[in-house]
């Protein structure tokens, strides 16, 4: 019986979710559109209604940028571990490193890789 609190928590959780959804259904604005039944696309205009074609090239570009900046941040972790022994020298080193990363970001920005509102294609 020691899990009773957990079960109650679970029930309350589901209850709140149901209440929220039904409230939304009761009072929310009803604008029947053809988009409503389509899969959600992370805030980008929908370009593919059955989600079975290849992705837009822009996604690859974004993925590529994410890959780079995400991975380069891995160098920050060992630095934080030994930071207090490195002193001002280590600080300047990492400052230079982040400066170079910022250069990369500036490059991507200037070349228009961050304009990720792709034009809507015909479907």
């Amino acid at each position, binding site marked *: 019986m020691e899990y009773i609190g957990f079960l109650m928590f679970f029930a309350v959780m589901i209850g709140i979710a149901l209440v929220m959804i039904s409230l939304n259904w009761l009072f929310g604005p009803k604008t029947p559109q053809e988009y409503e039944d389509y899969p959600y696309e992370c805030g980008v205009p929908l370009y593919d209604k059955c989600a079975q074609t290849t992705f837009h*090239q822009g996604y*690859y*570009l974004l*993925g*590529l940028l994410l*890959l*780079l900046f*995400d*991975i*380069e941040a*891995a*160098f920050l972790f*060992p630095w934080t571990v030994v930071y207090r022994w490195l002193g001002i020298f280590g600080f300047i080193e990492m400052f230079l490193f982040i400066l170079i990363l910022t250069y990369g970001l500036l490059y991507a920005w200037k070349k228009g890789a961050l304009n990720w509102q792709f034009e809507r294609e015909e479907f």
Partner: protein
Amino acid sequence: MKTIPVEAYFAVSTALFVLGLLGMIVRRNLVTVLMSLELALNAVNVAFVGADYHMGLVEGQIFALFIIALAAAEAAVGLGIIIAIFRYRLVDSTDEITDMRG
């Protein structure tokens, strides 16, 4: 606690490396070839970290960190080239990019 011998790490990493190598040879899709290359590079990481654990050193982990970062850079360039190939001709198979022979 029973420690794992260093040969076990090498066995895993060799298996991964051979898988990557086979993938590069057998697969035809450009992105899959690139993924196989990354697999081969990550096999090296496993071996380095295993060797480090065996010897109680840290240089291997530093090397592994560099491999992770530079493999990402290489993958980024590779994906860029694949996008360029795709834009140019709408192909994504290694069989279709054989303009140069001789």
